[in-house]
């Protein structure tokens, strides 16, 4: 589905990603784990062409989309939920979600509010509230709901558990799995929370200082405890 090959990413003169290769298969669920500041967010933003300067190639179903601007990638069916959520404060929750209609891919109808509430019961009581008036946990739910509202093919989640209470993190596991099952959405997740990553994905990449240090299934990850020690321990 998405094939990232030899991506180098830069912010100004600082070289963040070094020859990163990532493969996300159709309906695959892949986690990228790593410490703070190793380039996880930069990787997702590079895939969306939203921010960093990049070299290398991003392919979508075998076709290169390296030159496409971010909004066109969104319209292909790529939805990124940024780690800072970026809910529009001056719009209501429903309006925030309605915005995703711009990304509606190839005429597939977006989810109705009811359908969305089915996936995220938590957002029902806050639909008419302004984005600036909801809690951090609610913002995260709205950010994910907004991203899936137009049935993207691929969901890119950037540290969705950051700053969330444990109960909400558990809730989010159910939400994310439920959506990916129901909509056959592929998932590329960047996380520091290994527990959450393991619950929601099948394969894992470990990234350290901009380079891929390991890739494999979670069983293979567990078979090499030194990886955790070397690249993830704080």
């Amino acid at each position, binding site marked *: 589905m998405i094939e990232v090959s030899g991506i180098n990413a830069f912010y100004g003169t600082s070289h963040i990603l070094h020859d990163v290769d990532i493969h996300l298969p159709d309906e695959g669920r892949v986690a990228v784990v790593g410490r703070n500041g190793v380039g996880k967010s930069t990787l997702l933003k590079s895939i*969306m062409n*939203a*921010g960093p300067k990049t070299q290398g190639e991003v392919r979508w179903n075998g076709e290169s989309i390296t030159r496409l*601007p*971010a*909004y066109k990638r*969104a*319209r292909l069916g790529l*939805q*990124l939920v*940024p780690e800072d959520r*970026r809910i*529009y*404060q*001056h*719009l209501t929750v429903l*309006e925030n979600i309605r*915005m*995703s209609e*711009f*990304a*509606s891919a190839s005429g597939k109808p977006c989810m109705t509010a009811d359908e969305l509430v089915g996936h995220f019961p938590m957002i029902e009581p806050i639909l008419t509230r302004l984005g600036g008036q909801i809690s951090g946990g609610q913002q995260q739910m709205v950010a994910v709901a*907004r991203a899936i509202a*137009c049935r993207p093919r691929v969901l890119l989640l950037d540290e969705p558990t950051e700053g969330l209470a444990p109960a909400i993190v558990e809730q989010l596991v159910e939400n994310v799995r439920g959506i990916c099952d129901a909509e056959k959405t592929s998932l590329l997740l960047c996380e520091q929370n290994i527990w959450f990553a393991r619950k929601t994905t099948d394969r894992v990449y470990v990234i350290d200082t901009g380079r891929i240090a390991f890739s494999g299934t979670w069983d293979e990850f567990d078979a090499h405890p030194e990886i955790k020690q070397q690249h993830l321990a704080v």
Partner: protein
Amino acid sequence: MLFAIINSLTTGMAVFLVAAGLTLIYGVMRILNFAHGAFFMVGAYLVSSMVGQAPPSTLALAAAAILAAFIVGLFGLVVQRVVLKRVQDADEHYMLIATFAVMLICVGVVKLIWGLEFLSVSPPPGLEGGNMLGPVFVPTFSIFVIVCGVLAFLLLELLLQRSWAGKMLTAMSRDRLMAQLMGLNVPVWMMVAVGCSFALAGLAGGLLLPNQTLSPVLGDQFLLMSFATIIVGGLGSIRGAFLAAILLGLIDGFNAIAFPNIPGVGIYIGLVFFLLVRPNGILGEEQI
């Protein structure tokens, strides 16, 4: 006193009509557009060519102003395409120099087409003369300008705050990156915003044409006042620009009465005062 207030409001609303477009383009694109005054002037010249020095009717003036708005809006699209787009991600200084260059070119073209001599256009029948408001004589054209200013403000507020397109424009100005991630065709929305901003300049030029002395320096006068207005109001805030236009208009009116031998100084003293007290502008935290 009432006469002075009405005069001040007239100045204020005239400046607001120009400043609205200036603050809109800043709000959406973070551009300080030095060429705004020049395009205001182009609007005025276009309308003067359309209606002549004695406009036949208010309707003709308004229609010509709207047509001028449309034409200047198109110029805006060209400027966006040719100039602004290339420098939008560059340092602010480049943007300033680029729009300054556009201004110089624009003024030069105006001189080539319309010449250097001063032109004046009288108000159309219906807007000339005045009315007695109690004991005070109020020029009809003043009332026209005030009504236009308030209408423009209400319309812009309504469009930006209530309409879906306005909300999207505001969203794009607050967080362009997220707008792209949501699939908004940001370059096209930018074009719309720039087009609207320039069209506002052209419209203002047309509406304010009567009672002005039309010359190639007309743009500069209004540009300075407009910059003062949007700085005091808070860059990018329409509401702020509206309030600041009234405030600066009043200050200017007071200046004209109290210190008639140093006209125009009050505005700058006011500007300095507000910069010291509210460096981000009256409504600096609000956007658009």
